């Protein structure tokens, strides 16, 4: 059953006709031709389809597009300013935190989300119990980043480069914010 929805993707407004069964991911990829978010499992088991959905990192393969009428979506392609890469993306390039590149846009969006969540003091499963103030992006150590990034599988095995890339981006973001 077809229905029309509105989405704002990477700063651009779209009206798009979708089937009620169409996921946000398929709306982006198959209806709008926006293929930066990837389909790796289609069941929330790999994280390749991660975007920022109304500002938060979210998988899009299990989200029905009709339910997100009016949503604001940022894909990896829309993270940077113009042609300039987002600090997380630049860090991924610098650390060779990718190989085949298929999970990469999801990893990048997830990492941006991780930094935002840490900036809000959100704990993770490995945050010390009773850590009153939670955590900050600069305080993200290896275990924190690895745990928070574990929703993004990478079969090429770039994890040991992804973690330092996220740490470097956290540092760059903190410096940027301190200016």
């Amino acid at each position, binding site marked *: 059953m077809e229905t029309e929805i509105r989405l704002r993707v990477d700063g651009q407004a779209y009206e798009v006709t979708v089937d009620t*069964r169409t996921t946000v991911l398929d709306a982006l990829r198959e209806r709008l031709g926006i293929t930066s978010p990837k389909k790796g499992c289609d069941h929330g088991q790999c994280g390749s389809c991660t975007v920022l959905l109304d500002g938060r990192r979210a998988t899009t393969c299990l*989200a029905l597009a009709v339910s997100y009428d009016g949503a604001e979506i940022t894909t990896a392609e829309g993270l940077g300013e113009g042609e300039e890469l987002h600090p997380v993306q630049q860090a991924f390039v610098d650390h060779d935190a990718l190989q085949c590149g298929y999970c990469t846009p999801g990893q990048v969006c*997830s990492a941006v989300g991780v930094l935002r969540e840490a900036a809000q003091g959100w704990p993770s499963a490995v945050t010390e119990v009773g850590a009153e103030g939670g955590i900050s992006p600069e305080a993200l150590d290896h275990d924190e980043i690895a745990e928070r990034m*574990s*929703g993004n599988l990478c079969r090429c095995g770039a994890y040991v480069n992804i973690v330092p890339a996220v740490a470097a981006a956290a540092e760059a973001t903190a410096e940027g914010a301190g200016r």
Partner: protein
Amino acid sequence: MKPFRYERAADAAGAVATVAAHPGAAFLGAGTNLVDHLKLGITSPDLLVDVSRLPMDQVEERADGGLRIGANVRNADLAAHPAVRTRYPVLSQALLSGASGQLRNLATTGGNLLQRTRCAYFQDPSSPCNKRDPGSGCAALEGWTRYHAVLGASSHCVAVHPSDMAVAMTALGAVVVTLGPDGERRVPLTEFHRLPGDAPHRDTVLRHGELITGVELPALPFATRSRYRKVRDRASYAFALVSVAVALDLEDDGRTVREARIALGGIAHKPWRAERAEAALRGLPATEESCRTAAEAETADAHPLRDNAFKVPLVHNTLVAVVRDLVGQGAPEAPGGLEGSR
């Protein structure tokens, strides 16, 4: 996925009325489990009533010092909520050990309670499954059972409930608040999920058209000393083999158990409140021995399957380890406390 109509609910009462009147209708929350099942062909509603934008998204203080959690509160927000982190750390930990960051940003409190089993045969429509297709048989019974039940199962179904959040809430004595065609009701979480018996297709006591609107957590001051431990096949982003939620109330000596709240995950068709273990520990010093005895009492009726006999000792050891951590947390040098492992 069968074609379906979609309606966005204007209010809870309207959503309930619509679904109750329509046998093929289902509520849609974040969809992280429902859409999964639609794709696999496990369920095929012809109308989805979207309740995800209903204003059931607040965590409120209750007069008794407890919390009321709206059904649409996202798992990520609940885990990070200051009141949950400080007063019910076991719940925050359980939430954070479930799924992934990007899923927790979507998944809701109500939806989490209604997660269906991850039994591989349930998820494969070409296999027999009494839960998915009543009367077709249980492929798991004589099949791959690494992730299956050791307690409370039946010859009709040996699946386990996958939620972490619900295990912590079970230990905390949570109450599920629902709105149905006949109005509101409160169901203790321990009575919310069912054991499979001969009707494993019914996961919970919810009736068609009944909507979860929230969860009440009673005040439980000693829950500041609480912990969730999830044991799994991967360090993160995997379902539990076994999980243990414990809240411990200790006497002033820092070692004698005044009261314990214990729930177990990954071992039964529902989050398993370990009342036998709680009773066994009451009044005793929390030593390795007493904990092990308590854990053994809880699993006395365990019926392991081909691949999951390890879960019984694993539950014992994990419970011992969690209590050891909790006792150590309050009084690191407590003499005679739990030390080492066997």
